[in-house]
């Protein structure tokens, strides 16, 4: 059954990430990115891989570190392409990929 609140939460995070309004940060885990919002919540988006499957997960935690909601690949109302896009965008922003590519382009133009 679709958790409408969780779907709404996911869409909100995706839309703010697309707009670049969430400060995603890289972590010690290569495939996990985090962001704190409102001084009360932490978001984490991660990628996992099994023997014959892979998945993306978005978690919302409260100030005490308790998981409030959990959205993952395959959940009702969460299109796979959207959760993949969220992970890719969070990664891109956390690693400042666009800025670095611009830097490289600047260097390339000098050659």
């Amino acid at each position, binding site marked *: 059954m679709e958790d409408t609140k969780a779907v709404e939460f996911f869409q909100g995070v995706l839309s703010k990430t697309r707009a670049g309004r969430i400060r995603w*940060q*890289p*972590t*010690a*885990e*290569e495939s*996990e990115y*985090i*962001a*704190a*919002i*409102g*001084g*009360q*919540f*932490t978001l*984490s988006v991660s990628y996992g891989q099994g023997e014959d499957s892979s998945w993306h997960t978005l978690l919302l*935690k409260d*100030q*005490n*570190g308790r998981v409030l909601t959990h959205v993952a690949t395959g959940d009702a109302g969460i299109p796979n392409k959207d959760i993949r896009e969220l992970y890719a965008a969070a990664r891109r922003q956390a690693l400042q990929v666009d800025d670095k590519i611009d830097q490289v382009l600047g260097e390339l133009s000098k050659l």
Partner: protein
Amino acid sequence: MAWRMIDFLAGNWGNIASLAGLVFSILAFIFSKRASKAALEARNATLLRSLSEDMNGANRAAGEIVTYVGMERGDMALLRTSELMNQTSYFLARWDNRLLAEPKNNLLTAREQLRLIHKVLTKGDVPGLSPKAKAELMQACQQVSAIFSEEYGRAVRTSEGEVH
């Protein structure tokens, strides 16, 4: 002249006493206000000093984690990471109503980073990590250290009265 004064005092002693009472009440009110303001300021100063000390301790511990990871002393880094994770949870609860959203976001980020640093350190020895994983671990430790340095600076600045 003296008799007139005595007569006046005898005839109006009640009014004079009321007036004197009023003056003393006003003075007492002014002094109690000043005392309570001074007490409040002293309490705030003590709290802010305590916040600075907390952040200073955390800043030192975060610096030690960076050093231990750099020295590939995973056991010591793990110990310090656990301590700092608990301390950060304590800060979030202790200073909840004193911190603005930005420092709270920083502390939440630090705790989450520490949780993942702990996870990586628990998986295996630092020397056994791939160069890429080691670099990511080191960057995360540096970020935690930078967060606590920033928060320590902010707390000191606040306690010095530049920002309230």
